[in-house]
Structures are given as structure tokens and as C-alpha cells.
């Protein structure tokens, strides 16, 4: 079990740690006043990575190899000169939205997902980033990818297959899920079964909006996504997605999703009322859990505010390790459960807007 929690917020990075009596306490804050869009602990070497979203000075990348005692700036990815998002629009780094560490290359590289839709491989030794040209030049990109919530498409999920990290998936808002089996030399859409109800053709191959994409490291073909148009899972690596939303209940619209790595049919989502009304359903905050791959969903609200709640849980803000869960909200609440979500306690209620949570050692 990991004993630290890294909380990326609109006003900096906040570090929580479990103490000797199993209470979570704030032990530090970094980058005060600066929006931290993503935070990540590299599982290979324990280094911490953050992306900063300076309002004035652009997107920056920082690394700590001593658990936050010191930080060094690493050159952020740059789109190659002449790269265009579309005709007349230069591609420039707008946002960093995902990190992933390939296990097969030591600690040499880091994958970085960005807006406006580029996947980069950062060479950690040289600090040089290389745009994945095959995905960028996918024939669908200019006409069938678009922004959702942000101006341009963004890669928010990078899922590496632990059996072979030449095999990976990316989740793109808005384009869908793409898979490569050859280390990024070629990419195929994997959106069969998804509905894009905001498109003239909801069954289009491309143009879907997966809000978050996760896979089990124990059963990598078992994947989940909270989509703009429901909750989906697949047991065959995305060959066929199955809608497991509870359209008559709570578990339908939302952004975040967590899954049990050992028992992938077990998952949690953080519902919001609807696309049009982005507040908790009836302003009562809840988490929904399934134990059976989405056939049934239980609403969990013990300890959560049940009136006039306005919290939305962004896509990287609900995480679990076994039965321990955290979620952080747009209104600065941080909730914790030690029993799979049956009971919740507010660990902090005065944080800035929360953008990302991650466990750390």
C-alpha cells in the first residue's frame, strides 16, 4: 500500500501522508499559486513529475528525484516547427494531460499526452521530446477529432499493456480510443460499441469522448471507460465495448472512474446529473460502485454532503488502491474511504479546485 497522496490543484501541488496511526495529513505544498494540471509518480524509479499550466508563461514540466525536496525544470514537449493543428493554426503545447512510464526501457523515456492531440516520448536523459508522427498524422485527426471542454483534442489517458508495452492505448477527448500494437508506428481506432450521441451518426468509428480510460494490470484486456455518453467496459481489449450505464439510476454521466486492479469487474464512478447540468444528481454527492462489471450499481453516499452540493469530480480525481479510495472535487473537497466507498470522510474542505490525484511512496 502506498502511503502518500499527491494532489494537483489549481493553486499548486499538495502532499498528504498517512501517519503512524493511519491518519492522512498534509505534509507539504509545492508550486504555490501555480496551476498543476497533472502529477505522476514514475513506478520505475519513484521520481515525481508535474506539469504546470502557467496562465502567462506556458506549460512547464518539472521533476523531483527526492520526493519533492527539490525540483528541476525539464524542457516541456515542443511541437515541431511547421506542425499544424489544422490549416492556419500552428500546433503549440496547450496542456499536459497524461503521463505513462514504459517498463521495457529502464527509466529512459516517459510518454506524455497533450492538447492539441499530440503524444510525445520524452527522452529523460537528453530532455528531448519526440512527437508520435503516426498518431498525429492519422487520417482522421484533422476532420474527426475536436475539442471537448478544451479548444483542441487532448490525450488524457495512456494505457500500457504490462505484458508488452509496444501495445498501448490512448484515450482522446474528442476522438475516442486508439490502439497501437507496434510501439506507436501505427494506430487503429477501438471504439466499436460506443455511442457518440452528440454526433449526427452516434455509431461513427471516430469522434467519441472517453473521459477516462483504464485497464487492469492483472487482466489487461479488461478495460473501463467513463464516456461522455455513458459507462463502458470491454473484456477483449476494446474489440467490443459494452454499455453498462444505469440510465435510470445515477451511474451514467460523469468524468472519473476507478477500477479494482485485482477484480476488474469492480469499479467506481462519480456521477453528475447530465451533460447539460453539471452538478451532483439532485445536488447530492455520491459515488457508485459495481461488483459485477456494471450489471448492478450501488449508490454510496454515507458521509458525503446530501444537499446543495456542487462538486464535480474531474477525470483524474478518483483513485483507489484495493479498498482505499480518494476523490477530489472542483470545489476543493477531498474525500477518503477505507472500506471501498461504504463510508466517506472529508479529509480537507478548503483546497483549490482539484485536477489530479495520484498515489506515491
Amino acid at each position, binding site marked *: 500500500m502506498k502511503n502518500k497522496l499527491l494532489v494537483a490543484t489549481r493553486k499548486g501541488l499538495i502532499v498528504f501522508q498517512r501517519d503512524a496511526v493511519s491518519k492522512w495529513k498534509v505534509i507539504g505544498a509545492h508550486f504555490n499559486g501555480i496551476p498543476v494540471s497533472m502529477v505522476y509518480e514514475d513506478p520505475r524509479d519513484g521520481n515525481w513529475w508535474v506539469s504546470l499550466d502557467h496562465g502567462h508563461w506556458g506549460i512547464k514540466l518539472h521533476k523531483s528525484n527526492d520526493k519533492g525536496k527539490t525540483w528541476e525544470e525539464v524542457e516541456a514537449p515542443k511541437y515541431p*516547427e511547421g506542425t499544424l493543428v489544422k490549416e492556419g493554426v500552428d500546433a503549440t503545447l496547450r496542456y499536459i494531460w497524461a503521463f505513462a512510464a514504459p517498463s521495457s526501457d529502464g527509466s529512459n523515456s516517459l510518454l506524455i499526452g497533450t492538447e492539441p492531440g499530440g503524444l510525445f516520448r520524452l527522452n529523460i536523459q537528453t530532455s528531448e521530446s519526440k512527437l508520435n508522427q503516426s498518431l498525429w498524422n492519422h487520417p482522421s485527426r484533422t476532420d474527426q477529432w475536436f475539442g471537448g471542454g478544451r479548444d483542441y483534442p487532448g490525450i488524457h489517458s495512456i494505457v500500457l499493456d504490462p505484458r508488452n508495452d509496444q501495445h498501448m492505448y490512448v484515450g482522446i477527448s474528442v476522438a475516442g480510443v486508439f490502439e497501437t500494437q507496434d510501439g506507436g508506428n501505427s494506430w487503429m481506432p477501438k471504439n466499436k460499441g460506443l455511442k457518440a450521441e452528440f454526433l449526427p451518426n452516434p455509431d461513427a468509428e471516430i469522434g467519441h469522448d472517453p473521459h477516462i480510460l483504464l485497464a487492469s494490470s492483472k487482466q489487461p484486456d479488461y478495460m473501463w471507460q467513463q464516456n461522455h455518453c455513458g459507462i463502458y467496459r470491454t473484456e477483449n481489449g476494446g474489440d467490443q465495448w459494452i454499455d453498462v450505464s444505469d440510465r435510470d439510476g445515477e451511474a451514467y454521466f460523469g468524468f472519473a472512474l476507478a477500477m479494482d486492479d485485482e477484480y476488474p469487474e469492480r469499479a467506481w464512478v462519480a456521477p453528475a446529473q447530465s451533460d447539460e447540468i453539471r452538478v451532483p444528481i439532485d445536488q447530492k454527492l455520491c459515488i457508485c460502485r459495481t461488483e459485477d462489471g456494471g450489471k448492478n450499481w450501488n449508490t454510496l453516499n454515507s458521509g458525503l454532503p446530501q444537499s446543495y452540493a456542487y462538486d464535480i469530480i474531474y477525470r483524474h480525481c478518483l483513485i483507489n488502491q484495493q479498498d482505499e479510495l480518494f476523490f477530489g472535487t472542483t470545489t476543493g473537497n477531498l474525500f477518503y474511504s477505507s472500506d471501498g466507498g461504504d463510508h466517506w470522510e472529508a479529509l480537507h474542505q478548503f483546497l483549490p479546485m482539484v485536477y489530479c490525484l495520484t498515489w506515491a511512496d
Partner: protein
Amino acid sequence: MPKVSFTKALKRFYPTLENKIYIKGDNISEILDGIEEKHPGIKDYIVEENGQLRKHVNIFCGEDPIDDRITLSDMVGEEDEVFIIQALSGG
């Protein structure tokens, strides 16, 4: 030689940055290259990777904002003072 003044906001990231420095250059682009030589990496805080001035950064030559935010071609005289400041935006 043109004199360059910086917002104190940049000193957070470049603590050795002086409030005013003298940089050789005939236009804004050359001035920024000169600043980059003294403080590697700082140019990325001021311009995007395509070389355009960042949306929420302003450069003044004397009391006038520069005209060319794309290629930074505004001419700078020997006696001019250049100001690099952030726009008043955010929350």
C-alpha cells in the same frame, strides 16, 4: 545598447534575473535571443514554440506595445527601453 526590464514575476523562475539589463539587438527577436543566452530557457516563458509572443505576455518598447507579436520584428533603438511584463489576467 537597449535596456530591458522584466516583470518581477519572472524572477520566481529565474532568481538571478536582474531588474534591468542591457542587451544588444536591433529588434525584439534579437533582444530575446540575447536574453536567452544569458538565461537559458527563459525564452520559452515569453514565446510559444512557434516563436509567437505568448497570449498573456506583453512587450513594450518605450510606452508602446509591440506591433508584431508573431515574428517580433519591431525595431529597437540604441537608447530604447524594452519592458517584458505579464498581462493582467487570471484569478
